[in-house]
């Protein structure tokens, strides 16, 4: 393997704080790792665990969730729901063999462009160290399963 593994990370940001933090980082021309592709939600409380699972099932190596600091949520207390869901989701994903380090929840206020870039850079390295996830794309081309029990697959079942 000569090429460095570049993780693909889906990031969910909330409209009021963390998305504005990303905008602030942009306006200040701060440079950071390009591996995170952001999706804007109105609130981190909108974060449905299905979104995270879908991201992994579709090819992401990591998922970052960001929202307003506890106590500062634009919608008062919805980031706490995001926190609870994130903690239970991580445990559930671990049962599937998806390392807890592949999902990360960070808080960033609209003024914390620098903090967000630092979190992104750190997370990219953490996921890089875990390696690619490469979850199989179940829908699509036929998968050939190599059974460990026989080198060839029988095609006809005898009467």
């Amino acid at each position, binding site marked *: 393997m000569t090429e460095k593994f570049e993780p693909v990370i889906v990031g969910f940001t909330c409209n009021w704080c963390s998305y504005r933090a990303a905008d602030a980082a942009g306006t200040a*021309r701060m440079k950071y790792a390009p591996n995170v592709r952001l999706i804007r939600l109105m609130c981190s409380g909108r974060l449905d665990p299905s979104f995270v699972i879908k991201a992994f099932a579709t090819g992401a190596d990591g998922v970052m969730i960001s929202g307003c600091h506890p*106590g500062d949520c634009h919608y008062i207390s919805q980031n706490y729901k995001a926190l609870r869901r994130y903690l239970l989701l991580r445990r559930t994903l671990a049962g599937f063999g998806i390392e807890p380090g592949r999902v990360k929840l960070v808080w960033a206020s609209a003024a914390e462009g620098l903090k967000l870039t630092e979190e992104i850079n750190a997370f990219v390295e953490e996921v890089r160290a875990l390696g690619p996830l490469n979850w199989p794309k179940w829908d699509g081309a036929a998968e050939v399963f190599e059974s460990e029990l026989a080198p060839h697959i029988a095609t006809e079942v005898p009467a």
Partner: protein
Amino acid sequence: MSDEKKTPKEKIGVYVCHCGTNISAVVDVEGVRDWVQKNMAGDGVVIARDYKFMCSSLGQELIEKDIKELGLTRVVVAACSPHLHEKTFRTAAENAGLNPYLTELVSIREQISWVHTDKAVATAKAKSLVAGTVKRVVNNEALEKLKVPINANTLVVGGGIAGIQAALEIANGGFHVYLVEREPSLGGHMAQFDKTFPTLDCSACILTPRMVEAGTHPNITVLTWSEVTNVSGYIGNFSVTIKKKSRCVNEELCTGCGICIEKCPKKVIDDTFEAGLGYRKVIYTPFAQAVPNFPVLDQPNCTYFEKGTCKACEKFCPTNAIDFTQQDQILNVEVGNIILATGYDLFDASRMTNYGYGRLANVYSSLEFERMSNSSGPTNGHIVLRDGKTKPETVGIIHCVGSRDKNFNNHCSAICCMQSLKFAHLVKEHTGATVYEFYIDMRTPAKSYDEFYQRIIDEGTVFVRGKVAEISDIPRIPDEEGKLIIQVEDTLVGKQRRIPVDMVILSNGLEPRADAKQVGKLFGISCSSDGWYIERHPKLDPVTTMTEGILIAGCASGPKDIPASVSQGAAAAARVMDKILQKEVELEPVRATIDEDKCSGCRICNNMCPFSAILYIEDKGVTRVNPALCQGCGTCIAACPAGAISGTGFSDEQILAQIDGILMAV
């Protein structure tokens, strides 16, 4: 699992902006355009264009022309942040006859060209983000803003200066106001002050005309000795229940002559208006200029209610206005907007045991001093020690008591520096004493404030920069006998000092009201972690809250001086009248709906909503969302285990499609 080739159901136009060279210097804009045209035709892209400045009128015209000529049903613009130009492109689409919510703007500038340097990587990322937005927009729905009618009445909670200002502005505008105040009179804390900085105006002199104007205004219903007990509804349509507590005085008959107060034989310590410094009778008005001037009977302390005897007030009342059987009255009013101007509480300095407040007789709180200095206060305006007669010869004034202190309140209380300077002046004026001011910083920013500071310096006040460590009455040397010793590090000199004084005045910090959180809940608004009500935007929207129809003004949202409170009261009034004059209010259509057939009534979503938009309908066994209250955060949508809640603007279909697109191979 059928593999049919579906004809795309939408016609999508994609516009990639150069933004001068802001985007095109890093992202291969034409490359993205070509890639989209080629690879996303299957999703419905019929045209992909690039242009130097999409936000310009020519750029917008490109979109409008394509909508009309190509029959576009969806538009994606890849340019700057939606926070800047989403409205611009949505309006452009609307001008061409396409519902504005069928247009999306994705940032490839703040998110890509301004933050990444590798052009190939940046271009690939741009393709991903555009692909995500194209797949998302297929699932957008045409939405209409929700229109709700507005009731022209307003409720103002809190009869201090901010509340009075708000009420007067709205009333003068021709609309009716209910002004509710929990104390017996309007006036709030400002009525307790002696002089106001920096002009040294007599507080009551500038306040009472306003109080009288509010009390007699034909458009204001003043309800003192009253509290709001219930609020339901939403912007334009609030139903409010107000409890008018029993005064035991019939307001129709009372002339405010004051004989009942004179004849009442029992005195109690006045904890509220006199800040504990003086007494009042059991039947009382808090101060002479009270509005309204009807007294209140303090029932828990009244001899008649306790033992069944006395009744002096009733005996002597010339108009028979005393009514011991008077009950609390419950009023129900309908209003369109509510302004909370509930003010602040003073930090209880007895929590700082090292300052000895409450233990050492001659340590005074700021409000106690205001009452002492006030000529109609318990000492008739004489600055004297607790013995009631001795004039102090040295006085120490301490800033930041309970403020800027991680142990108590982190915040700066904004008014204490000016207040302390004012105290210094008043002490000097009344007693000629030597005054020491103990400060951390001097905060005198507004008009004429710093000039006032300079004046106080010129008056000979001694300034010591240091946070006072302790106030003690234990002398170490004979000169300290009988004095209060202020132990402080004088940071400018670099030495510890022990300064003996006769009197200490504390500048207590301002705190949120003790029941701010409960009151907030009643109205559906929230407090920040330090307890003040949260404004919609700290810079650009200081008087509205996240809940439509509930506004805040004055110290309820944070410490501030009188001019700022007045400004906020007026600002809140303007916002309210703004809404009233529109007759209808438009709400953004990003909100949740519950499919009642799918809803099983599990009630998991019931405590997901801080805006009380989620209601359980007991007799139907399902939950419903009130679209006027719903703020569109989507938390309930994400919580529903049955998938019975859907949301416009950020639906599951939109986001899942966006994830697909964003992870497409580029």
